[in-house]
Every structure is written in C-alpha cells, then in structure tokens.
C-alpha cells in the first residue's frame, strides 16, 4: 500500500439469524398467511433474496384487526398506564440489547450504511420507546386536552426508508396512550418489524396489542378501509397520503400523515461555511437521500456560491459509496429498482431542463441499486428537480440575493416539512425561522431527530406531529 486507503471493514452478518420464511404476527404468534401467498425481500446492495415473507390476505388483516380489537377491550384498556409504560421500557431495553442484530438486519434489508443503522436508526428507535414509556402514566400532564382517551385500534403504515425507526415512531406513542395496533411494514423492508415482533414476545407484551401484517399497497389499502380501526397513521408519499385522506373522508377515523418534502437548506453568506457544507452533505446524502425531510433544495446566497460549491464538491469526493455493511460506507444502496428508476428519471429531467449535473468520481458496485452522490447547479424554481421530491442522493442548487428572496423561494412549494438555516447571526436565524413554513427547522444543523422533538409538516407534508408531547395528541381523543 502506497497511500492511505481504507481496507474493507465489513460488519459480520453472523449475528443475524435469517429465517427462510417469515409469517404474520397476529395475536402474539407468528402465523402462516391464509392461502399461503408469499413475496420475497431482497438485499438491494446485491439483489440477493433474503427471505420469503407472508403476504397478508384480507382475511389475515381481518384477523389482525379482530386480535387488536379484542386485546384493546380485554387486556390493554384494563392495563394500568404505569404497567403499559413498563412494557415499553422493557421493549426499549431489549432493543438496546439486540441493537447490533437489528442494525445488521436493517442494513441488509434496506441497503443503508451500517454506520447509520448502528449509530442512528436503532439507538433512536430504542430511545423512542424509552421516551414514550414515561408518558404512559402522565398523559393528563401532556396538555393534549382534558381526559384524553385512546382511539382503540390503530392502523399504521410505515415506509421503507427508516423501517424500524418509523415503526418506533408509530408504535411507541400508540401503545403508550393505550391503543392497540395493526402495523403494515413496507413491502421492501419487512424484516426488522418481524424481528421486533420477537422483541414484543420477549417483553411479554400481551397478545394482540401489536399485530404485524406484511404485504404491499393493497394490504395497506385494505387496512385503511377496515371498519374495525379507529385511527390511521401513515408515513409515505404525499400521493398515497392524499389517497388515504380521500378514502376515509366519509368516516370518523382519525388520521395523521407524515408525507413528502422538498426542504430548503438556506446558506447565508455569514454562515460557518465548513459546518454548513457538512450540513448540506448530511441534509441530502444521509440515508441515500431517502429522507422526507431531506434538504434537497440548497439555497445559497449568491456572494458565497462559488466557495460553497467548491467546498461541497471537495467534500462530496470524500463520500464513500459501496457495501452498506462496510463500517466506512457513507452512502449505501438505493432501496429498490423502482426507486432507482424514479431517481434516474428526475435526474434526467434536470439534464434536459438545462441544469448542470456533477458527481464525484466513484466506482459503483456491479450488482444492486446504486446512484452516485449528485448535485445540480444552475437550477431554477421552475425545474422539476426544484419542485418534485426525488427521494435520492440528488441536490438542486439555487441561489438568492436577500433574506426576503430566500424566504420567498423556500416557501414557494406545496410542501412544508423541513428547512435549514445557516448563519452566524442569531437574529437572522429567528427572523428566518419565523417566516419559513415548515414543521421542522434546523438552524446551523440538519437532519437531527429526537423522540422529545415533535416532527411533522405544514401544508401538503402532512397532518399532525410525531414525537414530543405534541405527538401524543395524534393518539388520543379529547372533547373539542
């Protein structure tokens, strides 16, 4: 070796005991789907089949809803709030104990780097359970209204970008507030949810309190329309979210939605530029850009555009793309072929609409789904890549001249999930934050998450919040 190259440092997969086939988790047990239909889940980094997973038929979903209903009536609503909390504490602890196993499995099923599953997804998932465990017997202090009551059975549909973490965001508050759950994981990433079912068994969670039905969009739609559920929580695309809102418009079901975004990341000329560049990188390349709150629109003050762009490019050339199980990998695999095609389609539209594409030199693995870290400069507000969510490692760079213009451009979108502000001037941070129409604003940081911090969108980015005491409101009924 004549230069300092990092040798491969793969995390061992021996910690994961992959089964060849996974059943549905209904009423505390793994059961085969009626009719025996299955689908496969693959490792997107090499396209190898990981396992066969049960495809829940409608009658399986019915069973899950019945189990949840029975558990709500007979067990969970009779469990005291503090005892509910103790189950959640147990779950948090077991998640911590089995963290490495979850991290490896998540990386295999999702394609995201082990560094992120190990340092972010799994610890945060455990933290969500720990945090919400403490709320279970303190709901009257949560300020969500007087005499808060659970809805009953909650149907939860989660996405593939943070499979276990999104499960935690949904399941922890639902159980803490006394609801029971039927959860449908994403079609391409069901495995950590099924491993989580084992955690619930180890924790002794009463049967039927959490049920997991694996399947695809049709399974989710059936769950949404099921008359036996009282509340739906969905995280996913804006298009599907609107569809759910329509589907339940004639019912009394409650609904919370965490949908898409096109977050503006505003770099003022007085920013801490090196840290801002890190924030840009984290904003768009964290989790391959499969992040609803990604800072996918970079708004740079024109006076520092060259400096920021140069530093960004230099930094991007250090991004290590490849085997997600390698501890040094920064950017892993795109989660699915379909998603990869969507990213290509939008990036190509950037080319054809006249923006300039740049990616660092980097070798992509042969098998699997990969996309180089990419920036587009010279992007106009009217370009598709400035308006549509790409959900991939693709950043659109726009410029502004004055703070007013930055706000105008940042808010000029039907989305309203996240935004970033980079400046050393405190009053400018507050001025900007006050005017941005976004549910989460990161000032001089980006893509930070915490169970105590409410997360959710303005406008078409969603309904309601997850996390913090505000997130509890979604899971209780109060007089209004």
């Amino acid at each position, binding site marked *: 070796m004549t*230069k300092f190259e*990092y*040798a491969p440092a793969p995390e061992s997969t021996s910690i994961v005991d992959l089964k060849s086939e996974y059943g549905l988790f209904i009423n505390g047990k793994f059961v085969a789907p009626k009719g025996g239909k299955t689908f496969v889940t693959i490792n997107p980094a090499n396209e190898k089949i990981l396992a066969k997973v049960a495809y829940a038929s409608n009658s399986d979903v019915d069973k899950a809803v019945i189990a949840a209903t029975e558990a709500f009536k007979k067990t969970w609503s009779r469990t005291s709030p503090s005892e509910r909390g103790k189950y959640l504490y147990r779950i948090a602890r077991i998640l911590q104990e089995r963290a490495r196993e979850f991290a490896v499995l998540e990386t295999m099923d999702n394609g995201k780097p082990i560094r992120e599953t190990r340092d972010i997804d799994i610890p945060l998932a455990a933290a969500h359970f720990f945090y919400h465990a403490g709320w279970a017997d303190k709901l009257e202090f949560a300020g969500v209204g007087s005499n808060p009551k659970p809805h009953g059975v909650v149907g939860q549909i989660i996405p593939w970008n943070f499979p276990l973490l999104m499960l935690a965001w949904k399941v922890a508050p639902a159980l803490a507030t006394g609801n029971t759950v039927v959860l449908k994981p994403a079609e391409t990433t069901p495995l950590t949810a099924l491993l989580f079912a084992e955690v619930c068994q180890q924790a002794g969670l009463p049967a039927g309190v959490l049920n997991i039905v694996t399947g695809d969009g049709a399974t989710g739609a059936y769950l949404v329309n099921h008359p036996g559920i009282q509340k739906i929580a969905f995280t996913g695309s804006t298009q599907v979210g609107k569809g759910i809102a329509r589907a339940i418009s004639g019912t009394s079901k409650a609904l919370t939605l965490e949908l898409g975004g096109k977050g503006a990341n505003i770099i003022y000329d*007085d920013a*801490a530029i*090196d*840290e801002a560049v890190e924030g840009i990188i984290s904003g768009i390349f964290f989790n391959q850009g499969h992040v609803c709150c990604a800072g996918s629109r970079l708004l740079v003050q024109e006076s520092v555009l060259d400096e920021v762009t140069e530093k960004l490019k230099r930094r991007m050339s250090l991004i290590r793309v490849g085997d997600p199980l390698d501890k040094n990998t920064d950017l892993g695999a795109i989660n699915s072929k379909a998603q990869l095609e969507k990213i290509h389609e939008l990036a190509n539209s950037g080319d054809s609409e006249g923006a300039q594409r740049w990616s660092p030199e980097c070798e992509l693995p042969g098998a699997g789904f990969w996309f180089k870290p990419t920036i587009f400069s010279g992007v106009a507000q009217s370009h598709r890549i400035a308006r549509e969510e790409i959900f991939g490692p693709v950043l659109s760079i726009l410029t502004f001249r004055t703070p007013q213009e930055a706000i105008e451009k940042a808010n000029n979108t039907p989305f309203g999930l996240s935004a970033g502000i980079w400046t050393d001037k405190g009053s400018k941070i507050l001025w900007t934050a006050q005017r941005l129409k976004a549910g989460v604003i990161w000032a001089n940081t980006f893509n930070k998450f915490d169970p105590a911090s409410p997360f959710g969108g303005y406008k078409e980015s969603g309904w309601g919040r997850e996390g913090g005491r505000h997130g509890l409101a979604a899971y209780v009924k109060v007089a209004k």
Partner: protein
Amino acid sequence: MLLNSVSVDELARDEESLKRFLRTLPPVDQVGVEGRAAMLSTRSIKNASKNFAIDLAIRMVDLTTLEGADTPGKVKALCNKAVRPDPTDSTVPHVGAVCVYNDMVSIARAHLDSIGGHDVPVAAVSTAFPSGRASQAVKIQDTKDALDAGAGEIDMVIDRGAFLSGRYGEVFDEIKLIKSLCGEKAHLKVIFETGELVTYDNVRKASFMAMLAGADFIKTSTGKVAPAATPPVVLVMLEAVRDFHIMTGRKVGVKPAGGIRTTKDAIKQLVLVNETAGEEWLSPNLFRIGASALLNDLLMQRMKMRDGRYSSSNYVTLD
C-alpha cells in the same frame, strides 16, 4: 481565491488590516465541528491500511521529552529510541524528530549524529515555552540558542495573553520575527496552546495569523495544558491549512501534540488528515504528532499486526 505573496503581505500590512482579515474568516460552529470529528472517529481502519497507518504514524512522531527533570542520559535514550524505535525489528522507520528544551538540543543533535540518526531533526521548544511569558529579548535569545545548538525545527509558543486581549499585531510580529531568525536553517512550528484559546473561532484565527506570518507548521499545544490536541481542534487547523493552500498555494503543516497516547488516537488523527486536508498532508513533512508514550503503543500494535497476538509492554523499551 488565489493570492500571491504581495497580497498576502497586504492582508497583514498593519494590525488593522490583520484584524479586518481575521474578521472575514467564517465562524466555526462548535457542535458541527465536533459532530464531524466524532463521525470521522468511527472510521474503521483494518489490515493493510492499519499497517500503513502505523508506520506512517511512527514516521510522524515528534518524540518528546519536556520535563524539568530531563538529563543528558534521558535525552540520549530518547534519541536511541527515535532512530531505532524497535531494536528487534529494523523495518520500523525512525520517527519524525526529537523534541526537547533548548539546553538539550546540542546533546540530542550530537547523540543522534553519533548513532546514525542524521536525518532525524531536533526540534527545540522556544520563546519561553510553555507559557510564553518573557521579554522579547529573552525569546529571541532562546531561539538563537536553539538554532546555534543545531535545532532543525523551532516549536515556538505564541503569546496567548496578547492574543486573548486582541493584540493580534503583536503576536503576528513576534511569529514573523522568530521566523526570520529561523531563516533557511530551521522549520518554524507555531504552538497556539488551544486549551487556552478555548474557542474554535480563536483556533481558526490563530491558524491564519500564524500562516500569514510565515509558520511552516501550526501546532495545537505544549502538552502542559488540557484539553490539547482534540480531534475537532485538529480538524479546524486542518481546514485552515487546506484553505490557506487554496488561497495562497503554500502548504503549511499541522502538529497535534498532547493527549495522543494510543494507536487508535493516532489513526483517528490520520483519518482527519486524510478526509480534511487530503492525502498530500499524510507525510511527516506536513503532519507530525507530538508524543512520548504513543510510540510504544504504535510498536505494540505493529507487533500485534505482525504476529497476530497481543503484545506486552515487556517487549517495548521504556526509555
């Protein structure tokens, strides 16, 4: 922006210009820079890259003794170690330099020469190390003594009192003065004592000021004050040399010193270099590590890599 030397001089024409320039430097966000350093510390360096890193780190060590109790015997032993870190393995490279107080320079130089260590320079700490609290005349004499005794490198301390009270011109002029004494004879390393400057903004300012004044290296600490060479401090200094290179075309080295005791610590530093200033800085010409205990840990790790079993301090020399 590439500046030629004339405009570099222009930036520090007088104290006002210097202050104005230092004010234009972007601020450093503490949480952000610490987050970046923490992320880089998760890099996993294994197998061939670890072998490479260990030997590189050995070549970068400024093997140091800076004690009131230093004696010729102690310094000579250190010199032996510097030239042949592992007497049982001749493939181990020699260290970057031997670093001593100025009254030990001639002893170190003579001993190194006598054992074939001609290419191991002696670095002398200077300008009333470690506090820097002395008259300029004393500081000048201190430096001259070291140079006369054969120091190839001068590790000067800045006047932190002057820096913290905003008398940047004074600090700048003093660095320039010492640099002029060093001339072509010796490399100048400028020690900030970052533990006393406290903020990363100060570290960045001090870095640019020292580089503008002609420093060949910027160095974190004396080793007498904690915290010393923490990864984020080194990261800020590496950013500074990187940006100064882009700005002027001149490459300035970085020397963390203090608190780097294990191979793991040293490899973290190399990762910082690799992913901040870039691979050109991965050379003893541009990166040194001021240390004493570190060397033995590097040697023990080297044995582990070679023999496949964990070593013991019985198999490295305690000097």
